[in-house]
C-alpha cells in the first residue's frame, strides 16, 4: 500500500476538481516565516508524517502572525509526532468553518465493490476512534460498471442534512472524489474532514489517498512518491523484508507460510527466542534473488541462527539451494543455517546442499523439526 502524504493527496484531489487548501511545504522555521508572511493571514502548520493511525489533532499548530508561525514551527521540527521525526510541514491559510463531515471511498471485500461512506459524527472527524465504535454512518455501494450515480450523492447529502444550496457543489465534489479514487487506482480516498467554511464553501481540509501497489506500473507519477521506511521495504526484486526483535533470521516463500513459521518459533521459543526478521522471497524466486535475500538477513547483527523454510510450488527448491551455495561459497556465515526444502524439485535442492558440504548448515525434513533445530542453535550460541 502506498499511503500518500496530506499535501500529495490534496494535489491529486485538486486535479479532479475537489476544492482544497493547498498550502506550501516548508523544511525549516525560516521557510515557514516566509510562507506565513506571503499569506498575510492566520495560518495552520501541519507536520507531514506518515503514521498509520494519524490522530489529526497531533502535530497541528495555529498561528496568528508570521513570527508566531516561525516559533511554533521550530517546536514542531524539534519534536516527534507519533514517534516519527518531523522533516517537513505544510503551511496553509487558516479556514474558519461552520461544520465538518467525513467523506470517503473504499472497497467492500465481501461484496466486491466500492463503497462511499459519509458521517456527521464528531467522533469520526476529530478522534482516533476504535474500529468497533458505534457511529452514525451512511453508506452507498457503487456498481463499478455503472459508476457512482448522482442520486446516490443526493441520498448522502440529504442524510447528512447538508443545506440544499450546497447539494450542487457537493455533487460535483463527490463525483470528483470517485474519479480520483478510480483514476489513481486508490484503495482508499478520504476527505477527513470536508468542511463548510464561514463563507459557505465546501473545502477538503485534510485528505488521505492510499494507492494499490499492484497498479503502480500504470501510475508512474504516483510511483515516484514511494519512499522506503526504516522497518519495511519491498525492493524491485520482489523481496519483502520485515525487521523484528528476536534472534532467528527467517527466509520463507509465501505470506501464510511465513506467518506460520514465525508463529511456531514464538510458540516453541517460550517467549525468550523469537524471529529477528522475516523475508518473504515471494513466488518463483531465482538463485540470485535468494542470495540477495540471504545477504540481507546476514546483515542483521541480531541474527543468531537462520531458518530457511521453502515449500516449492512456483518456487523451485534447486534454485533456492543454488542461492544459498552462492552466498556460502563466497564467505561461510558464522551463524548456523537450518534449511528445510519441500515441494517442487526438493530432492534436487537437497542434493545440491549435501554435495556442497557447507559447515554449520543443517537440513530438516519437517517444519516442526526445522523450527526446533533453529531454536536450539540460538540457545547453543548464547
Amino acid at each position, binding site marked *: 500500500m502506498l499511503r500518500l502524504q496530506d499535501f500529495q493527496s490534496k494535489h491529486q484531489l485538486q486535479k479532479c476538481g475537489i476544492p482544497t487548501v493547498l498550502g506550501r511545504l516548508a523544511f525549516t522555521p525560516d521557510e515557514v516565516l516566509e510562507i506565513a508572511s506571503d499569506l498575510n493571514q492566520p495560518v495552520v502548520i501541519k507536520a507531514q508524517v506518515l503514521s498509520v493511525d494519524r490522530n489529526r489533532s497531533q502535530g497541528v499548530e495555529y498561528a496568528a502572525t508570521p513570527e508566531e508561525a516561525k516559533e511554533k514551527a521550530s517546536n514542531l521540527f524539534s519534536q516527534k509526532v507519533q514517534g516519527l521525526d518531523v522533516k517537513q510541514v505544510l503551511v496553509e491559510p487558516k479556514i474558519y468553518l461552520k461544520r465538518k463531515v467525513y467523506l470517503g471511498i473504499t472497497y467492500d471485500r465481501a461484496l*466486491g465493490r466500492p463503497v462511499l461512506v459519509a458521517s456527521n459524527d464528531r467522533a469520526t472527524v476529530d478522534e482516533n476512534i476504535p474500529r468497533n465504535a458505534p457511529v452514525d454512518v451512511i453508506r452507498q455501494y457503487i456498481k463499478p460498471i455503472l459508476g457512482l450515480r448522482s442520486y446516490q450523492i443526493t441520498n448522502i447529502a440529504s442524510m447528512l442534512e447538508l443545506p440544499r444550496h450546497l447539494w450542487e457543489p457537493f455533487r460535483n465534489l463527490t463525483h470528483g472524489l470517485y474519479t480520483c479514487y478510480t483514476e489513481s487506482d486508490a484503495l482508499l480516498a478520504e476527505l477527513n474532514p470536508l468542511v463548510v467554511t464561514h463563507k459557505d464553501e465546501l473545502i477538503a481540509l485534510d485528505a488521505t489517498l492510499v494507492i494499490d501497489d499492484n*497498479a503502480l506500473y500504470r501510475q508512474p507519477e504516483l510511483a515516484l512518491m514511494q519512499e522506503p521506511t526504516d522497518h519495511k521495504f519491498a525492493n524491485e526484486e520482489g523481496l519483502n523484508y520485515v525487521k523484528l526483535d528476536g534472534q532467528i533470521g527467517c527466509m520463507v516463500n509465501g505470506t501464510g507460510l511465513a506467518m506460520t513459521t514465525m508463529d511456531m518459533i514464538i510458540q516453541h521459543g517460550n517467549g525468550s527466542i523469537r524471529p529477528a526478521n522475516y523475508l518473504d522471497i515471494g513466488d518463483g524466486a531465482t538463485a540470485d534473488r535468494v542470495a540477495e535475500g540471504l545477504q540481507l538477513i546476514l546483515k542483521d547483527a541480531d541474527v543468531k541462527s537462520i531458518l530457511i523454510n521453502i515449500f516449492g510450488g512456483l518456487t523451485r527448491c534447486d534454485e533456492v539451494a543454488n542461492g544459498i551455495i552462492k552466498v556460502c561459497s563466497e564467505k561461510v556465515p558464522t551463524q548456523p543455517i537450518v534449511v528445510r526444502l519441500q515441494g517442487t524439485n526438493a530432492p534436487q535442492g537437497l542434493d545440491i546442499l549435501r554435495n556442497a558440504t557447507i559447515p554449520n548448515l543443517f537440513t530438516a525434513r519437517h*517444519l516442526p523439526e526445522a523450527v526446533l533445530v533453529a531454536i536450539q542453535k540460538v540457545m547453543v550460541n548464547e
Partner: protein
Amino acid sequence: MAILTHPHMRVLVQGMTGHEGSFHTRQMIDFGTNIVGGVTPGKGGEWISGKPVFDSVIAAIEATEANTSVIFVPPEHASDAIYEAIDAGIDLIVCITEGIPVQDTMRLYDYLKQSNSRLLGPNCPGILTPSGISIGIIPGYITKKGTIGVASRSSTLTYEMIYHLSENGLGQSTCVGIGGDPIIGTSFVDVLEMFENDPDTEKILLIGEIGGRAEIDAASYIKAHMTKPVAAFIAGKSAPISERMGYAGAIIEQGHGTAEEKIMALAQAGVRIANNPDHLVELLR
C-alpha cells in the same frame, strides 16, 4: 465426486507458452488432468507438451470443446484473459496470476456476477482432486486420496498442511485454494457449501490468515448450515495488527482482522482450532 472438478473437464491453459504456463502444463498433464490446449495471443499454431496453442479462447473452444480454463497470464493482461474466458462461456475459470489491481478486479467481479461462469482466485494455487485432476499449481505428489476437504486462502501454507496430512495418512477429497486477494470470485462460504453437499467429503480443513473477514463469514455459515466437522488453522497469531485503511476501511471491515478474532468466531461456531500442523493431524484423525 469431489468438488469443483468432474471427469468431463476439458482444460485450457491461458498463458500456456510462458515460463510458468509451460512448466505447470507439463505438471498438470503428468498428474492426469485432461489439458486440451492453450491460448497465447500471437502464438497460435505452436505446441506445448503435445497440446495445441490457439490465438483466442473462442478458437480453442471450437477446436477442443474446452469448458475449463486456468490462467497464467501476467497481471497487466490477466483481467482481459478472464473477460475473454467469461465471454467465451467457460464454466470454471481458475486464475493463478498474482498482482491484479483491485480496481480491475471490482469491475471484473461485477461482470462475472452477471455471467454463468465461476471464477476461482485471482492469486490462488488452484484446485486439486487426488484422483487425478489438478487445475493450478498445487504439487501433486504431496496429496493423497481421502475424505478431507481442504479450503485455504494461502498457497505455500496450503501445501505445508496437505503434505502434513498426507504424511500422517490423512487423504483429501479435494483441495481448493480460494486466493489471497481482497476480492475473489469464490469465497470460503461457497466452498464450504460444496463440501457440505459432497458425499466424498467427511471432514473439512479451513486454512485462514489475518486480515479481512472471510473467516468470520465462514464461521457464521458453519454455525448456521454445516453438519460435517470442521477444523481450522489460522496463520498470523504473532503478526502485528495490519495497517488500517482509514476510517472507511474500519467501518466496512468491522474489526481488526486479527487471528484472535477469527479463532474466537470459529470456535464459537464449533470449529476445532489447531495450534500447529501436528495438532491439526490429531484434530482430523
